[in-house]
């Protein structure tokens, strides 16, 4: 259902872009109004989401991290997986953000010989996830040549490295292939792995299909159906220097599809799971040092005057609420169930 919905949504978006390319009167909507709207929604939306997250208190350090915590001097601490200092936390965050440390720990459970359950390592998701994210970053940075004027210094180095093997003309970029291969894996995984398919929603398929469509149209424009790049760059520089121009008629519809879908991505970004770009930095299990008993941690609500007026749900009340059920489950009770008919006001007596 989610898959069908996503496919239809992408198809509708592509048709919209083709229509936009076919009707010259609509060109300013697609190359001026929409990009400004998309950039504004992206930047403001990401900030709003992060500020919303920042309003949640994290009252204690979550220490369920793999690796030995700091303990007695003769027990070796795992300083990167279970850090107790800020420097260690920075190291752990760097491993997480740059190399997906948590995903590297991924395991799978399988039934062997009938009913024996076996756990094993599985690195495929980590490998293709890493391939996708790094390729996407490099592809994005390379795109500075299309919209930055002057072009930043790093673009040339990236292009040289990315086209290291000098295959074909224009030279094939390895990250272009990597991006599409990784996205294809991530997409097929959601279709052919029954467990993953069961938990996949439209919000999982849609961004993958959107990125696949963006990468495909980009690759088509670079290697197959070429278009007037100088005219495209003039449009892009016009937008970013706040002197938008009317796009030349030599720009092909492929560009309109590519560009429109990128705008959709920017708009979709802050309101979707793609916000893990900001969220990874706010993961409490990653960004807090394990110094629960080494440092004083103040209750974040301690200065809130309403905090002490809050009604506290005590254990007595909890047991009152669930006593009969707890008795039935064989749990130990502080007060026994009073064996009186319930109609006779048992609850009053308990309280």
């Amino acid at each position, binding site marked *: 259902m989610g898959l069908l919905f996503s496919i239809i949504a992408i198809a509708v978006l592509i048709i919209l872009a083709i229509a936009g390319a076919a009707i010259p009167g609509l060109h300013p909507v697609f190359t001026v109004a929409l990009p400004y709207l998309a950039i504004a929604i*992206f*930047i403001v939306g*990401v*900030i709003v989401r*992060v*500020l919303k997250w*920042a*309003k*949640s*208190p*994290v009252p204690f350090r979550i220490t369920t991290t793999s690796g030995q915590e700091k303990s007695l001097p003769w027990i070796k601490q795992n300083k990167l997986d279970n850090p107790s200092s800020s420097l260690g936390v920075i190291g752990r965050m760097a491993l997480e953000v740059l190399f997906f440390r948590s995903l590297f720990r991924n395991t799978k459970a399988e039934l062997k010989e009938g009913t024996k359950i076996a756990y094993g390592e599985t690195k495929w998701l980590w490998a293709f996830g890493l391939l996708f994210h790094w390729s996407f970053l490099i592809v994005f940075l390379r795109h*500075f*040549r*299309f*919209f*930055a*004027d*002057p*072009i*930043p210094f790093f*673009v*040339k180095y990236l*292009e*040289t490295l990315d086209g290291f093997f*000098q295959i*074909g*003309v*224009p030279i094939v970029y390895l990250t272009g292939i990597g991006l599409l291969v990784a996205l294809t894996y991530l997409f097929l995984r959601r279709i052919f792995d029954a467990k993953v398919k069961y938990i996949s929603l439209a919000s999982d398929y849609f961004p993958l299909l959107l990125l696949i469509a963006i990468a495909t149209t980009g690759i088509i424009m670079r290697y197959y159906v*070429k*278009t*007037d*790049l*100088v005219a495209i*760059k*003039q449009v892009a*520089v016009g937008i*970013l*220097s706040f002197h938008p121009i009317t796009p030349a008629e*030599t720009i092909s519809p492929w560009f309109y599809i590519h560009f429109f879908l990128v705008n959709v991505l920017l708009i979709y970004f802050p309101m979707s799971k793609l916000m893990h770009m*900001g969220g990874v*930095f706010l993961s409490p299990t990653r960004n807090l040092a394990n110094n629960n008993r080494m440092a004083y941690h103040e209750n*974040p609500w301690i200065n809130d005057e309403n905090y002490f007026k809050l009604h506290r749900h005590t254990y007595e009340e909890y047991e009152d609420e669930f006593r009969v059920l707890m008795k039935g489950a064989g749990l130990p009770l502080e007060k026994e169930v009073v064996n009186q008919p319930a109609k006779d006001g048992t609850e009053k007596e308990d309280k």
Partner: protein
Amino acid sequence: MYDSGKILIGIVIFIIVFSSPIWTNWLNPGEAKTPDIKLPANYKECVADKDYMKAYHMDLLNQWRDKVVRQDIRFLTKNNKPFMIDGQRAEMSLTKTCMRCHDNKAEFCDQCHNYMDVTPYCWNCHIDKYKAPKDVVPNEEDNKQ
């Protein structure tokens, strides 16, 4: 809001990074000039039409290279007849055909290539005659002799 200092640092970094194309365009306006191509004054004919050449010239040169280097096919044909430009058989050669008319790399090739940050490896072998030392490239008067 909790940890507001760290959150604000993060947000500031986010804004700087993702608005960098905007402020780099502002800080150095118009440093990379928009292409200003000088077309040859004396020649009107080309091996293909303008729109095709604009988008696909690299494909064309690549095909020429393969034909000349790997198959020893040196001259252009059209409809099985030799393709003539300016009364001469057109050779599949960057130096002898393309650059006979478009003779100034800086005023023709480089205009778009620099603007779009394209560094074709044509010039690893081919020579820009305006930059080469005089004893490397025979000047046109030498050719006439």
